[in-house]
């Protein structure tokens, strides 16, 4: 039966994606193509919308929420997966509201105003069936995919406003977004880049190679030299793994050091982060903030004697508080960290914060 085949095909794809997520997170390098993960997640959610059996928006949201929970459980540190699920849930809510004809497009959030003026305990249960809902949702998801594809380009386009000639820029580790940002500016300006190698994975080396191939003058420094060199730096531009709801970052380890050094020297810290990295989590909320990988990168197993006497940790992420950040550059423009709450309310619905 074609129906059963489609279903098994769909569940096979989901299982393959989950297995890939589980594998991909272990030590292959912390910032592993978040953009690809976001794109794959969205494509998978579109497939679920198209092929799964559902009759009302409520059913679809339940299915997507269930799959979303499984995906986030597979790799809790990969927050882009959860973010895309929440985006799609918001899309479904909006399309449902539009089909119902209610002008709820603007304010779905709780607010004092709503408390005072609402006529009743409006419990939307999304049970009504609309035949055009499926097509609308799929179209909206396609728009989301187009937006995802354009993010790096949109961010790189803003490079010339921020990077001036003969400037010294510092960055840490390897971020594809920052790479494209700097390469775009290099087409018209000459500047110097200092890359902190970001031990123990030393992704900074790859970044430096790639930048120098684009004819940018690059220097690699060890992480311990960050403070020493900072006095000569004009700007610090970094990428991040996640942007948290208070405007803070969860970035590769060593970023907090870089941020503190920049603050001390009053050097602006610019974070290049596309919108899909924005996550509605707060830093002290859960215990899954940190991820630790095998410590053999720090202290190899061959160092036999010392191993029994010390504890070795290899954390992957760092928390950077919002006070240390000057500007966020995303595909929709530049924003201050104190404005992140507003962007969050536009992207996600508060009931979806917990899947």
């Amino acid at each position, binding site marked *: 039966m074609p129906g059963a085949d489609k279903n098994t095909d769909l569940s096979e794809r989901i299982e393959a994606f989950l297995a890939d997520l589980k594998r991909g997170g272990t030590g292959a390098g912390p910032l592993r193509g978040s953009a690809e993960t976001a794109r794959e997640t969205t494509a998978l959610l579109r497939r679920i919308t198209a092929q799964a059996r559902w009759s009302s928006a409520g059913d679809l949201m339940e299915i997507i929420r269930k799959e979303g929970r499984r995906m986030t459980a597979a790799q809790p540190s990969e927050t882009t997966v959860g973010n895309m699920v929440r985006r799609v849930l918001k899309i479904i809510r909006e399309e449902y509201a539009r089909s119902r004809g209610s002008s709820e497009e603007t304010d779905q959030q709780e607010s004092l105003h709503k*408390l*005072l003026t609402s*006529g009743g305990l409006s419990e939307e249960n999304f049970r009504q069936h609309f035949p055009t809902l499926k097509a609308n949702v799929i179209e909206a998801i396609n728009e989301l995919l187009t937006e995802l594809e354009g993010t790096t380009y949109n961010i790189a386009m803003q490079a010339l406003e921020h990077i001036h000639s003969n400037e010294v820029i510092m960055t840490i580790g390897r971020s594809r977004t920052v790479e494209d940002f700097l390469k775009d500016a290099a087409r018209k300006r000459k500047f110097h880049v200092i890359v902190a190698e970001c031990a123990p994975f030393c992704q900074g080396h790859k970044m430096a190679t790639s930048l120098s191939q684009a004819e940018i003058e690059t220097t690699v420094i060890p992480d311990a030299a960050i403070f020493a060199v900072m006095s000569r730096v004009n700007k610090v531009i970094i990428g991040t793994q996640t942007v948290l709801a208070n*405007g803070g970052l969860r970035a590769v380890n060593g970023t907090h050091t870089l941020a503190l050094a920049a603050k001390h020297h009053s050097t602006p810290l610019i974070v290049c982060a596309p919108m899909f990295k924005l996550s509605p989590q707060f830093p002290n909320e859960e215990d899954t903030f940190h991820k630790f990988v095998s410590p053999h990168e720090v202290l190899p197993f061959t160092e036999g004697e010392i191993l029994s006497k010390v504890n070795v940790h290899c954390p992957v992420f760092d928390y950077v508080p919002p006070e240390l950040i000057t500007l966020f550059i995303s595909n929709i423009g530049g924003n201050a960290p104190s404005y992140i709450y507003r962007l969050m309310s536009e992207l996600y619905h508060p009931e979806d914060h917990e899947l």
Partner: protein
Amino acid sequence: MNEQELVEYFRTQMGKDPDMASAVAAIRTLLEFLKRDQGETLFGLRESLTSATDCLTGVDSSVAVSSAGELFLRFISLTSLEHQDLSQCKKVMEERGELFLQKISMSRAKVAKLCHTFIKDGAKILTHSYSRVVLRVLEKAAAEKKRFSVYVTESQPDAAGELMAAALRKLDVPVTVVLDAAVGAVVEKVDLVIVGAEGVVESGGIINKIGTYQMAVCSKAHNKLFYVVAESFKFVRLYPLNQQDVPDKFKYKADTLRSSQSLSEEHPVIDYTPPSLITLLFTDLGVLTPSAVSDELIKLYL
């Protein structure tokens, strides 16, 4: 409903449920006033409500009562924009008023649900004076089987901290009462500071029992997290820039304002904590950064 009946009703409401916030009691009283009002015009209604609010602030001069009055007035204005006929308008107002009261009675539970996840197992918490919202949050955390210990300041001049300590001991939470002057010395031992608020101002700062500002400055100096828990009806349209900017009518108790010769010899009962010292605010509208508070107020009042 004349002044005396108003004050009587307010006092009965406060007495009936000691757990209820004074702002909720004020809104209940104003709603009752609305029901019994015989006025024919909207303007007359607004005027009588304003004088009723003034009367209530004469009984309890806290920021919360004043903000409740303003919120109610705003509620009247918003509803009257939709219905031109006064009697129909009044019916709608009464219905919506009841709904509003129902919703805000659930706000403390919402705040507790949001905040308790931020309390980690083994945490040491510092709090100030007696706040029913903080108590609710700690109750919820204790119910989730989290182990934590609490330091409470004595909070003179009314020793409200002792009340808080007694309530916490009933929950089997290890609690230590410290002197108000000991805050600076204690802050290095704790992991986070949670306080309630009598009012949340437009800038995202708070107005709370005297001693809160001190606690906030000390916790900033030691880089400790400073959380504020407050219901959304406490948002008030004030924008103080320093301690002096807070109006005198809030700083002193109603009796003191009436009877004292010179206010400069009285001790203020509240202080203002600026938003730069606050990490996060937990309200029934969600977890907010201080910069998000003004957004909420703008949505309501403009």
